[in-house]
Each structure stands twice: as structure tokens, then as C-alpha cells.
């Protein structure tokens, strides 16, 4: 029993959905690196991200946005992948600082990854070491634009190219004891 909508109605509906999604971004509070310290000023009185509907959430099940705040050790990456997979679709990733882009000052570390988007799909990068709260909010607004234009399809990309991502992940996480991601 497939319900078919009028095309216009469908469009309106999907616009409403996109609008709701963009206006209500719940961020999973996962402080991975030094960038985590930039989040409190972003959220509190000085910069007040809540005026854009950005709010912290306690668990990945409720969250929409995974904020990778800085360098990722291999051990942390494993937890990040786990957290990302526990989030509910649609979900977005914002990567934070140069460490996630090219390794940053940890470019030669034996234990930190240098390219985040080889492991999980990143929708928006925020440059800087560390980015200021203004830059963080700018990143969120960029993400909102992408959502409104239906271009923030990281989760779909992940689902499509799961094999490729898995291969990359398994390359550095040797002892793979993760539950299967069955989407």
C-alpha cells in the first residue's frame, strides 16, 4: 500500500522536513581533542548557538550532528565510529580544526589519523587550530544551508560506500570487535 502524494505536496512536505531538520540541530557532546574547549563558549551566553536551534544532546540516539572537535587517536576513532553508527538517520558530521583535515600538528604522530573523511563521511569542515566560536557557528550555518539544499547526504554516502569505509577503518583498527552496522 503505497501512498502517493501530489508532487507539489510532496515538495512542500520535504521542504518542511528540511526546514525542521536545519532549524533543530542537536549536537552529541563528544569532545575528542583540544577543540572541545571551544564548545562551551559557543553554547553559552557569549555566542549563544541555541538561537540557531543548536542544542546539546546527551546520547547519540537523540543527536543529529556529530562534532569531531580535534585530533583523533586510533582508540578514539573507534568510539567515534561507534557513536556515529548509533545515531539516527539523517545525521551529519562536522569536523573541527586542522587535525581532522590534514593531521595538523599531529601530522607525524604514530597514533592519530590525518584524514577523517576516509573513515566517516564529513559534511562540513571548520578550519583553524582551533577555530573560534564564530567559525564554529559559521560552520553550522553552512551545514544548515547544505541541509536546506539537500546536499548534506553524508549518511547516505556512508551507507552506500560502507565497504570502502569499513576497509579503511579496519586498516587501522586491527582488533575489530564492533557490532555490524546493518543499514
Amino acid at each position, binding site marked *: 500500500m503505497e501512498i502517493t502524494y501530489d508532487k507539489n505536496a510532496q515538495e512542500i512536505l520535504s521542504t518542511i522536513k528540511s526546514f525542521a531538520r536545519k532549524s533543530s540541530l542537536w549536537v552529541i557532546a563528544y569532545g575528542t581533542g583540544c577543540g572541545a574547549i571551544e564548545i562551551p563558549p559557543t553554547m553559552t551566553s557569549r555566542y549563544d548557538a541555541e538561537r540557531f536551534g543548536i542544542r546539546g544532546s546527551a546520547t547519540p540516539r537523540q543527536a543529529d550532528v556529530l562534532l569531531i572537535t580535534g585530533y583523533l587517536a586510533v582508540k578514539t576513532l573507534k568510539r567515534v565510529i561507534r557513536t556515529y553508527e548509533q545515531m539516527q538517520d539523517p545525521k551529519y558530521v562536522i569536523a573541527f580544526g586542522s587535525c581532522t583535515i590534514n593531521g595538523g600538528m599531529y601530522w607525524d604522530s604514530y597514533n592519530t589519523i*590525518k584524514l577523517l573523511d576516509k573513515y566517516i563521511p564529513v559534511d562540513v569542515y571548520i578550519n583553524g587550530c582551533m577555530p573560534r566560536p564564530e567559525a564554529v557557528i559559521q560552520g553550522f550555518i553552512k551545514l544548515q544551508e547544505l541541509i536546506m539544499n539537500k546536499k548534506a547526504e553524508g549518511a547516505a554516502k556512508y551507507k552506500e560506500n560502507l565497504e570502502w569505509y569499513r576497509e579503511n577503518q579496519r586498516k587501522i583498527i586491527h582488533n575489530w570487535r564492533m557490532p555490524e552496522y546493518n543499514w
Partner: protein
Amino acid sequence: MQNNLELENKIAEKIKIAFQTAEVQVQRKQRIKVNLNEDLVHPFLTFAKNTLSYKHLSHISCVDWIEDNQFELVYILLSYDSLVQIIAKTRINREKAEFPTARNYWPQVETYEREIHELYGINFVGNDHLVDFVLEDWEDLPPMRRDFDTVKYSQEHFFNRPGREDAQDVRKTVTKHSGEELPDLAKIYSVRN
């Protein structure tokens, strides 16, 4: 200031009397350095804990003396009575890196030994909890050993952003563009000079 070192000297004297082979040196106020033979470390720890009331072990550290083919273990002890730190050092063989655990004196030693085991590959005999600490599932050479090439490892294992695959020292590029001379210290410590 010299007359203020009475306490330190007194403790140093006691150590000298008990351990005659030990090199005892009062480095500055509140710090005594003790160099010990490998087999005297445990008697010394017992002595410090029971006789000198060094109830607290702050840290265990390790130095890789690859030139001497030795590891140096550093035990940092603190007494709450005198507030004088004792830094007890010993050297062990690098090839057969084994040392008896000090977990029996201070339970928290377990964590420090786990860390040293992971980063230097020293096996602490008697500590049965030398499991993964910071590095999960590490299969390579222990990374803090000086013969471990971290750049090579990272290039082999992690992806590089195109444009940074040369992974050159930033300072070199900076000096090239600005025409300034690279500082001497930087020359020494730069990874690829």
C-alpha cells in the same frame, strides 16, 4: 641558601649509610637524586617506604638510552613528612627488558607500569595486568623506543592529505621564504635535518 639543605643532606646521609653503592646527590632544595644498581631498586623502595616514610610514589618514568643499549627507569618518590622528592634511577638491559614490579608497595604502580610496558615494551615481572593502555591493539614496535620511526609509521598507516605527503618540517619552509637562518636549537631537534 646552603644551610637550608640540612634536611635533604640528612636524608641523603641515611641513604648513603644504607646503600653504599648508591650515588646520592642532593640536586636542589627538596630533591635528591639516587642512582642505583638494578638489583638494589627494590630494597631501596622498601627502605624508602618503611624507614624514610616515603608513602607516596608520584610516578615511574623511563628513558631510552639506545646508545648504551640500556633503559633507565626513574622512580619518583615523595614524603609527606619532609616534602623532599627522591628520584631513584636505575639502568636495565635494553635487549632483555625485564624488571620486577613494584606493585606490592604501591598499588597505583600498576597503571604506570602498564604505560611503560606499552610505550617501551618493558616487561614488569609480577604485574599480571599489563594489558592495553592508551594504544589499542598495538602490533608494531613500542612507539617510544628511539629506534621506532614515527613518521614512517604514520605515512604507512594513515592517509595523507594531498599536498602534504612530503611532510616536511614547516620551519624549513618558513626560513626558505623569509630568508632567516634556522636557529641552532631547531637544527638539532628538527626531525629531518
